[in-house]
């Protein structure tokens, strides 16, 4: 597990690449894209705090 963590976080390694057929993506880029989609969907469904009372 430690070895995997070092591989993911090391700036010297080429990183982990995932591929399906001709499609290939680096794990770090895939994580960022998934995180962005999750944030986008959460922003659509989560209620916004009402804040201070207004007139």
């Amino acid at each position: 597990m430690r070895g995997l963590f070092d591989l993911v976080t090391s700036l010297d390694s080429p990183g982990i690449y995932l591929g399906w057929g001709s499609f290939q993506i680096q794990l770090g880029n895939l994580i960022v894209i998934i995180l962005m989609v999750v944030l986008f969907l959460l922003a659509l469904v989560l209620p916004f705090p009402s804040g201070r009372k207004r007139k």
Partner: protein
Amino acid sequence: MSAPVGTRQTPEDQAEYHTWTGKARGWLLRRLPADKLLPEDQPSYVASWIYVFGMGAIVSLVFILVSGVVLSLNGPSWYHVSGLGHFVNSVHLWSVELFFMTMVIHLWGKYWMAAWRGGRTLTWITGMGAFLVSIVTAFTGYLLQTNFDSQWIAFEGKDALNSAGIGAWFNVANLGQIFMFHIILLPVAVGAVVALHVVLVRMHGVVPPLEAAESDAQLQPGANTESTEAGR
């Protein structure tokens, strides 16, 4: 000249100007009165998380600029070898990551809102311009890492730029030129385009939801947002 749709009549509308400075002031005040430039409130439909990401991008940009100023004042012999230098360098990198994440989520939200509606074409175009100039700025940043990564990126990128015919003028293998682009020209360009984008958002207001009825009180010219807050 009649006031544009969506602006309220002010004494500036009736005033007559004879000098270019006065005419410029009248033109600016008609299009961007003080209560639009720094509003007290926003329409009720802005109370959604999807509207947060544009400001998130601006906050990230502030962090990028401030950390970039610290990096440029101290230089590579500081940020490559000292602990604090590494930290500020990392703040610079991760602010860029957050900047692009928030900016692209903002772009997704605005695309699905068709945010170019209601005379907001230039707002949309300046937003896309900010995105494109930011990509070039980030590219020059990756070229300045002064490691094998940046060497690889430069010598892969030069072929693309040469094929586009701009390689002699924008030479990614010229570290000095790329350094000046990254710390002077491109930050000024990003800042100017983002500032124009924000001013245009203030002038035209935040785009209403697609399903909002045209008779909605908040969409009427001169609507006072404070009076519509009861619907929140």
